[in-house]
């Protein structure tokens, strides 16, 4: 709100329903360039659905998305990727039968130029491209300290490592906006700290704008610059972490609506 520049992402009056059940109703908020914006709220509040809209997996019933000044009613998944929107998934959606390096390189797919024939015949352009991709992938793997796992099949790795691979895959194509759906879910506290630090570093060093969903509010409040609270698909609060913590509505959403009455 205080940033003078135009927002990197603007969600405007988005609504979405599944078979008549409202998942998101008339949601609007802005994400400033290079900030970490956290979406929080109870289960079923519509957070993942929102990320899916930003990525083009779902089509909103109404409303629009403004990304870097361009207006979209519906985003196509490939279009989103091409415009530099990266994504990490809730229940880690890695390609389980592929090696770590191949998973990461798959994130570079849209930069591939060599034709099928060039690849099949190992012609120079295909070889050069393969080398370039591999180098880029290793660069990113190094960032996450994953190099030693590069040739391991993903399914054989512990969950915490898999989550890191997913992050690596999401950023390998150098996105400008990164969407993360519960990147810390299912981890122990040491792992959580590590991933949180990586996210902060990506934001700081790579100047990445990040929108993330997270339930560990303690970490969210430390990590995020900006918090949007959702409940029943509506926006409950929107502001800096400090203002969120003390917002009575937020406390009620998390701890129950009858706090006052019970205490009395």
């Amino acid at each position, binding site marked *: 709100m205080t940033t003078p520049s135009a927002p990197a992402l603007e969600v405007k009056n988005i609504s979405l329903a*599944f*078979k008549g059940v409202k998942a998101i109703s008339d949601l609007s908020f802005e994400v400033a360039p290079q900030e970490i914006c956290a979406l929080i709220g109870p289960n079923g509040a519509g957070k*993942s659905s929102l990320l*899916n809209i930003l990525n083009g*997996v779902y089509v909103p019933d109404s409303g629009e998305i403004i990304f870097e000044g361009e207006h979209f009613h519906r985003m196509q998944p490939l279009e989103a990727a091409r415009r530099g929107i990266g994504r990490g*998934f*809730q229940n880690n*959606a890695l390609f389980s039968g592929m090696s770590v390096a191949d998973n990461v390189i798959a994130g570079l797919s849209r930069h591939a130029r060599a034709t099928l024939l060039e690849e099949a015949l190992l012609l120079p352009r295909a070889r050069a491209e393969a080398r370039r991709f591999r180098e880029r992938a290793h660069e990113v793997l190094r960032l996450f300290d994953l190099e030693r796992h590069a040739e391991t099949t993903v399914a054989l790795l512990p969950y915490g490592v898999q989550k890191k691979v997913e992050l690596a895959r999401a950023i390998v194509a150098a996105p400008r906006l990164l969407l993360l759906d519960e990147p810390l879910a299912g981890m122990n506290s040491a792992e959580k700290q590590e991933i949180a630090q990586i996210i902060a570093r990506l934001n700081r060093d790579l100047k990445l704008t990040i929108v993330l969903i997270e339930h560990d509010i303690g970490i969210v409040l430390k990590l995020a610059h900006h918090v949007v609270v959702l409940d029943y698909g509506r926006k409950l609060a929107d502001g800096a972490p400090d203002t969120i913590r003390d917002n009575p509505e937020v406390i009620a959403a998390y701890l129950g609506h009858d706090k006052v009455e019970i205490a009395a």
Partner: protein
Amino acid sequence: MNMFLETLIGGLLAGTMYSLVAIGFVLIYKASGVFNYAQGSILLFAALTFVSLTDQGVPVLVALAITVVVLALMAVGIERLILRPLVNRSPMTLFMATLGLAYIVEGTAQGLMGSQVRALDLGIEDLPIFLGDIMISQFDLTAAAVALVLVVALSLLFNKTRLGVELRGVADDTRAALSIGIDVNRIWQIVWTIAGLVGLVAGLLWGARQGVQFSLSLVVLKALPVLIIGGFTSIAGAIVGGLVVGATESLAETYIGPFLGGGITPWFAYALALAFLFIRPAGLFGEQKIERV
């Protein structure tokens, strides 16, 4: 005009047979999420068992009873040896498993009971009846009536009995069914038995028409477009789909076939199904799935 009506009615009546086969698929798919490619082989197996028994001089009713018991045992075996170990696996894997199952059932049926064509006489005369000027096959009419009775019986079972309610519950939500004490494995065994019985009826009707032989198992290939058109999860869809395929197939053979040199029935239903897929991927009665990531 008469020719058109005759073709249409003949096609619709033949379509009831397709429906009958497709219903067996729907039952299994709804209750256990398996696309049962072996349904055709089960149909062959059921009909062959019955014919082998009656050929040996076993009275018809006793033969029926024995066949039913055999089908129930097979269903228990399938649930124990295939469905249970493969629980939670992808639909593709389950599909391929039923391909394997089809081979086992076919091999066993023909290995034990021979692969020559067996005549089956159900005592239905196949003399044409005339409705005004329109000629209708009496056999087709009887078959359609039997199919109708079966569908009514099934819908009574599903809607009016305790078992039926439980069956539908399992089809809706397996976990919830487990949580309130429904024995899902037993339900699967029952559903596969019922699907076997539906297969038996269909097998006897088809068998009476073209003899009980290996080609019976190929009706699975007829049911597939029916399911695509009607949707995999709806018995009503299976019936309508069967009628649509039966009618359009016979109309197409009569009116389009001559321009293409004839014999287009084997693939026409597939072309129709593909066209449907592009317009309505979930079929006429199916439900669209929402994917979560």
